[in-house]
């Protein structure tokens, strides 16, 4: 077929994968990029969750945590910088590999591809896209403060009343629902990603790889339940205004 003749079919000339950049662009290297940025993003999410859960400890502690984070500029900007590098790398590399993989099978099966594969693995792109949409909304809500209900005035200290923002937002079922949905898709994404990253980094064990697959499922959905507990607790009146 025509598309075959366009292929160069010759490996790049020496030095093979000499530079790190060339490696990062190769099929295996791009997955290493996904794995490494994935670990970073996962660590961030876990730390973020720990902070969020202070909402259960009441207004004072949660607002105290929010203010402490806000006033710790090196930590805040260190985190932001890491995210500003990690997120685009993760997303752009994903987009590139998807394009590459589509090109690798220009003609799909006429009947269907019925080869077994876990649903979470096959829908990484979809779950990732929804999580990205959720993330943008979440930033608009809490970081840029352009959507969602806002408390009328900042705290006397000049800080934002994060606790009120959280409660006022999640008292609206639609907003709470979108947060829960975002978490469910994040869980699906992590349930494959947390296992997959080990494969990409070449870590495999006859005994612990199957265990790891279950662990990724538990960690992914565990994070989801913990995150989603906050909007649900507000809706149910457990976290009070």
């Amino acid at each position, binding site marked *: 077929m025509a598309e075959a003749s366009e292929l160069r079919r010759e490996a790049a000339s020496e030095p093979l994968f000499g530079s790190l950049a060339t490696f990062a662009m190769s099929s295996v290297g791009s997955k290493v990029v996904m794995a490494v940025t994935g670990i970073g993003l996962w660590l961030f999410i876990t730390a973020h969750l720990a902070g969020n859960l202070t909402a259960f400890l009441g207004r004072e502690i949660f607002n105290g945590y929010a203010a402490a984070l806000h006033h710790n500029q090196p930590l805040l900007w260190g985190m932001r910088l890491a995210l500003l590098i990690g997120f685009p790398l993760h997303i752009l590399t994903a987009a590139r590999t998807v394009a590459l993989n589509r090109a690798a099978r*220009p003609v799909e099966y*006429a*009947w269907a591809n019925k080869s077994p594969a876990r649903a979470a693995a096959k829908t990484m792109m979809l779950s990732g896209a929804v999580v990205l949409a959720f993330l943008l909304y979440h930033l608009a809500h809490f970081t840029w403060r352009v959507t969602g209900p806002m408390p009328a005035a900042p705290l006397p200290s000049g800080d934002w009343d994060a606790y009120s923002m959280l409660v006022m937002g999640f008292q609206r079922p639609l907003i709470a629902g979108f947060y829960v949905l975002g978490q469910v898709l994040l869980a699906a994404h992590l349930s494959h990603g947390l296992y997959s990253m080990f494969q990409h980094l070449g870590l495999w064990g006859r005994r612990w790889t199957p265990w790891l697959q279950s662990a990724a499922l538990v960690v992914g959905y565990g994070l989801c339940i913990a995150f989603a507990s906050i909007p649900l607790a507000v809706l149910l009146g457990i976290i009070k205004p």
Partner: protein
Amino acid sequence: MSDKKMKLKLHVYRQASKDAAGAMKEYVVEDVSEHMSFLEMMDHLNEQLMNKGEEPIAFDHDCREGICGMCSMVINGIPHGGHRGVTACQLHMRHFKDGDEIFVEPWRARAFPVLRDLVVDRQAFDRIVAAGGYVSINTGGAPDANALPISKKEADLSMDAAACIGCGACVAACKNASAMLFVAAKASHLNHLPQGEPERYERVKKMAAQMDAEGFGTCSNYSSCEAVCPKEISVRVIAEFNRDLLKAQAK
């Protein structure tokens, strides 16, 4: 032994030549014995076609006992038909029943262009092996057998990977048309032996570069390859390949 005769409806991909347009075509096959292999059923259909003066369906085959890796059909959406550890030639018709509809398609990948009907060009695999799937040996007398002791553990790892018959089912099954299971199996089988070990990192670099140049996709760890591999090769080899390639960057 009973010998039930079946009547099947087949949908087979037909393409007259490399550059022609192809399409699925419907056929009815009569008198299929449950003792036939899938390829024998195809032969049977071809006889019926030839009797009618039609062009028989081209498909690859050779050993017909699951060792050569020539047969290559996606049967009802799964390469080799979806029974664990069997090639299409080992697939028995007793797995089907009278009146079944069966879809038969070629491997689909940009790197495996269709040459005719169900026959695809798999030379991309040969070029990957030529790029690094060998051991450089200086000429001389054949070394004594058992001169190099190899531990049972290493021998097993090597032999498990060496079971690969290069059929390409892994590529055909993968949503990304990735060749990682094949490439990694070929590398692993040499990397675990003292003869292959010295070139380990050079080998994975060269094979990975050729794999990319051939236009295969990337590995997303779907493990579909492992599920359809007629030799049941584990995705362990892929992790190993990734690790070696990562280490190779530092060399």
